[in-house]
């Protein structure tokens, strides 16, 4: 292949997509990182500010509230979504005649965008459940769960599990199906109980599915925005703001572009670290089997 041909091939196949990728993703990323070290106000900057934006971010009490809330949300949703999703996958692969219909039911919430989900569930928590529990005198939902920080947290978890467990279920189903029948047959002949088979054979043999699903739920947890905005809107009193929404508010509602972007850079570092740690741990477990 001569040079002219190489250049032409690059021009035809790669130049345009790479240029768009550069303009849309790489440049704003680099620019955003650079701007956190200036006194940028959203339009221009006049001088360098060192790490001032970062120190200011850490002095912001609301940011700490958000960080703890986000951390709690990421951990709880990670566990809840994966436990439920794995359970659903076992259920759907249990050779029921209704398996396909069940799978559809579990998956459908996933087709719907976070805002629509948020609005539906807001109606459920604020109106439907209250009216139902008053009618039948149930104790749990007399007051809207969205009015109080603690219950609003669980409302966010419920909706997140409802929305994303179906997707993770598909990943686990793929893992479960990929296990060879011979192995399961051998375990059955040896008289292994269903629980034993699950723990000693199925789970180790589908470790890759866990790696993927944990990675996705981790990332989704940190990046959750739509459901947060549409379900709690950060209320009451900004106590249920996840980091994504906090950054949005800081920059676009309060005009703090410098700290907003610094927090976004910190968020990126958190996601990247958490993802790397999780994937390397999971990979090690995968190899060990």
């Amino acid at each position, binding site marked *: 292949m001569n040079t002219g041909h190489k250049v032409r*091939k690059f021009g035809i*196949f*790669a130049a345009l*997509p*790479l240029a*768009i*990728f550069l303009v*849309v*993703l*790489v440049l*704003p*990323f680099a*620019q*955003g990182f650079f*701007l956190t070290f200036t006194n940028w106000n959203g339009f221009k900057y006049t001088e360098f500010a060192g790490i001032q934006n970062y120190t200011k971010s850490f002095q912001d009490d609301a940011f700490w509230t958000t960080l703890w809330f986000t951390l709690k949300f990421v951990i709880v949703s990670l566990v809840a979504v994966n436990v439920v999703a794995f359970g*659903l996958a076992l*259920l759907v692969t249990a050779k*029921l005649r209704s398996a396909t219909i*069940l*799978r*559809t039911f*579990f*998956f*459908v*919430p996933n*087709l*719907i*965008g*976070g*805002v*629509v989900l*948020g*609005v*539906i569930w*807001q*109606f459920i928590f604020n*109106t*439907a459940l209250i*009216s*139902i529990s008053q*009618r039948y005198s149930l104790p749990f939902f007399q007051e809207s769960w969205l009015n109080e920080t603690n219950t609003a947290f669980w409302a966010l978890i419920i909706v997140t599990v*409802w929305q994303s467990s179906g*997707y993770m279920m*598909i*990943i686990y189903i*793929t893992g479960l199906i990929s296990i060879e029948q011979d192995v399961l047959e051998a375990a059955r002949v040896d008289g292994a109980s269903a629980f034993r088979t699950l723990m000693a054979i199925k789970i180790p043999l589908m470790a*890759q599915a866990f790696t*993927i*699903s944990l990675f*996705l739920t981790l990332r989704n947890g940190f*990046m959750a*925005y739509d459901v947060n*905005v549409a379900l709690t809107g950060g209320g009451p009193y900004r106590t249920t703001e996840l980091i*994504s929404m906090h950054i949005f508010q800081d*920059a676009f509602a309060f005009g703090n572009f410098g700290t907003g*972007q610094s927090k*976004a850079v910190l*968020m*990126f570092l958190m996601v990247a670290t958490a*993802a790397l740690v999780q994937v390397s741990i999971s990979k090690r477990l995968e190899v060990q089997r």
Partner: protein
Amino acid sequence: MKSQGRTFRKIVFAVGSVLSFAYVMPFVLVFLNAFKPKFDILENPLSWPKQLDWTNFQQAMEKMNFFRSLTNSVIITVISVSALIVFSSMLAFYLARTKTKFSKVTFLILVASMIVPFQALMIPFMSIFAQFVSLNNRAALVFFYIGFGVALSTFLYHGFISKIPMDLDEAAAMDGANDLTIFWKIMFPMLRPVTATVAIVNALWIWNDFLLPRLVLTQETQTLPLSTYLFYGQYSTEYGQAMAGLLLAVLPIIVFYLILQRQFISGISTGAVK
């Protein structure tokens, strides 16, 4: 032994039924209340509507500008997804077939970029781009979707193309076919399973995306998710209308899913395992 298996099955079936009921309940509520006037909803959200009342739907359609929003969503999704298919399959072909340091590094950068959250880009994004171009148009949005989506799609294609033997393209090149012919006539048809995955994963994301259109678009160019946000704010007490609006907003994607169910499921599982 046999009867034990049967009881076990019955239990599994019961658990499955209860759970699936919990999963569809929110949709049932939306459906039931979309046909009711406000008073009936407040009285009992679980009751069957007294009559088939379409007023909520009419009003919701008007407020959401339903057909315009639907058209915008369809146009934006279809163009973005098609562009992503063409661009990323070609890019992946280039990166997988030219074994240079440049293509290796480029591929690594693409993969690494997938953990960059959109939130880390949106602020510079808005203030930088807004200075040069008017962002409020669908073309700009499509452009952004290509930029954000190209990494994952290229990654998916790359994995598949790497498994196709090089002999194939070499044989075609011997016969005098040029690069474009090799790609479109020989390679691309073989990529069909990945193309389905790429199409479905991206279509779901773009169709439902809220944050980016919220930053970029205004009223006339708004997409369906943006139009439903109306029901969150000022109309939040018009429950019936909101429910009708939500039903209208989710109907297209659910119908689409039910038609292409098999492709959806296999698309997601191949996409995830890669």
